[in-house]
């Protein structure tokens, strides 16, 4: 990333592969992530999508919001379906196409992790993009493996979630695949460049985990999607990084924060109603975890 020329708003392509007026909620972080990622991928791309907010965004038959071929597949099967698309591309002489799985956090880290692990182990020639909005939003905000500790959801309605967020990108990185990156809906140009880079690394499995704020699910006003996403990075809670052929490096805004003051995590928690039940104990625990993580980054 450091050596590549970074994309700016001035040289970002005008081509749109997601139609406006789709069914995303107002302020939807996924709307930004999907539009940006598809710009980076370009039209020579085939998508596999499980049930998720993206299924809704894409529209109801017989209309579709995406100007790319897309196969909707069962919840647990996204990475295996992308595998099948790639196999067919090789078998039919169209191997140059990008094959991209696009799934939510539940579809990736919970029900879909077996198929994803299998695809990573086999080194399938696919790009897997997980948009992580930290709960089952499409079904009405139930806890998922990536919901952070303390968060109120419709299935953790009184005490909040008791367990920490599952670190899905680290699990995927443990497979030793060619490329793992994190990104944020709040930094679309960084996401754009990472998707471009992933697409250029054709041949192996590439995974991008995108932090994706969700106004109704997280409980903030629709105008604050970018602000909330940026704040998560500013606190050091969600970090932007790449693991290229096993080499870890912080990127973008996270790289800039090394050695600098980070926003206290309590400030981030105040911006969203989902954190309203947090005890001081959990806030302190979370701050300590972040501090330890960053101490390790700079060690």
């Amino acid at each position, binding site marked *: 990333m450091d050596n590549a020329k970074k994309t700016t708003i001035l040289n970002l392509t005008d081509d749109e592969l997601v139609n406006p007026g789709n069914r995303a909620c107002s302020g939807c972080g996924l709307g930004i992530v999907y539009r940006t990622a598809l710009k980076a991928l370009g*039209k*020579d*791309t*085939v998508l*596999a999508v499980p049930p998720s907010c993206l*299924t*809704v965004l*894409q*529209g*109801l*038959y*017989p*209309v*579709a919001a*995406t*100007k*790319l*071929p*897309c*196969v*909707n*597949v*069962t919840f*647990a*099967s996204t*990475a*295996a*379906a*992308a*595998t*099948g*698309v790639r*196999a*067919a*591309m*090789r*078998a*039919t002489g169209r191997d140059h*196409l990008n094959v991209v799985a696009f799934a939510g956090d539940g579809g990736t880290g919970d029900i879909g992790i*077996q*198929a994803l*692990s*299998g695809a990573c*182990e*086999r080194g399938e020639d696919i790009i897997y993009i997980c948009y992580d909005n930290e709960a089952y939003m499409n079904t009405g905000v139930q806890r998922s493996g990536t919901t952070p500790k303390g968060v109120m959801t419709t299935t953790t309605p009184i005490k909040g979630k008791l367990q920490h967020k599952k670190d899905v990108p680290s699990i995927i990185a443990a497979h030793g695949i060619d490329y793992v990156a994190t990104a944020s809906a709040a930094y679309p140009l960084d996401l754009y460049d990472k998707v471009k880079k992933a697409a250029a690394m054709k041949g192996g499995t590439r995974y991008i985990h995108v932090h994706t704020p969700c106004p109704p699910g997280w409980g903030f006003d629709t105008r604050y999607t970018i602000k909330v996403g940026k704040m998560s990075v500013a606190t050091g809670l969600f970090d932007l990084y790449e693991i290229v052929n096993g080499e870890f490096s912080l990127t973008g805004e996270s790289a800039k924060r090394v050695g600098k003051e980070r926003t206290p995590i309590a400030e981030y928690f105040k911006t969203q109603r989902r954190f309203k039940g947090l005890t001081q104990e959990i806030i302190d625990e979370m701050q300590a975890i972040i501090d330890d993580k960053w101490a390790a980054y700079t060690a």
Partner: protein
Amino acid sequence: MHVIESGNVAAATGVKLARTQVIAAYPITPQTPLTEKLSEFVEGGELPAEYIPVESEHSAMAVCIASSTAGARSFTATSANGLLYMNEQLHWAAGSRLPIVMCVANRGVGAPWTVWNDHQDTVSQRDLGWIQLYCADHQQIHDTVIKAFKLAETVSIPVMVCYDGYLLSHTYMPFDQPEQEQVDAFLPPFAPEHFLNPEAPRNFNTVTLPDVRPDIHGNTAPGYMEIRKTLHSDLRGAIGEIEKIDGEFGEIFGRGGEPFVEPYRCDDADYVAFCMGSLSYQVRDVVDAMREEGTKVGVMGLKVYRPFPDVAVRDALAKCKGVIVLEKALSYGNQGALFADVKSALFSAETRPFVHNYIVGLGGREIKTEHLYDALTESINNEAAIGDEPQWVGLKM
């Protein structure tokens, strides 16, 4: 070319001759030697296909669903719990109208664990919207696999080729293996009208509303119910296609002519034993013995279970006095599913034979020929006493 090979290899060579492009494979007994053989064909360069050693049966069907949607001829195989682990995917493949072919080496379903043969796995999956074909010997396995691709691609419906685990999958029999040129003349390359293609992008399996809905040009597009009605109508229409394809196959390969039921000594039979798979061949010995004693009995093997060829079944059975349905599966809490289907097909006949139900060989329980003889004799002599209740053959406790 005449070869002597196992039933699993008879299936594998059929898959090879069909020029299958994508194979997804996950091991399960007793199917495993089939996909092992395919890996050998692919690694050895005999079959230029993509071979994906997936991490589960659910993913095996996912690969086939996606590769078929993308325009490649796709195959997998499984048994028992592997088939059931695919369940939602099987519905998905049928709803998405994908011409996937899958072999099932029939096996009993756990719990308790069993690896031995019965038909509970596939019979329990009869309502998926798949075509289900059953084979009685190795030649039928080999031929049916080749025919299955043509059928699936003609009607855009996935096809299950079912054959008895161990009894056929692991036994060796001679069969004729056609030349590649003959198969190529019979089965053209897979060329779907719609597939995943950036030049003509389409969104497949989109959320569909209960009601019909206009597209952007104002044309009315079907709702969920119309789409499902079409699947059913096309499955019923597949009955005619099965007959047609059987005829085309016969012209090239010189085999076939009995696409739905395979009768043995049924022409003048008062009583007909009715079953699926290799059991119908075993019953032939019983039929011969009973014929020598003067009982006019025959046996009929059903080759197509879904769509159910009700007219062919009615025509074949309505004129006899009694039908004895021998089944390796059961709709628990009711009767054998095949038994219910046969009775249903006969209901509109002018004169109806009695129909009895015998449950045999569950979980590989040995089906002794004398047990079958006793069952047929009991059925014929005790028409009124037996009724609808399934009779269990070969129980020891």
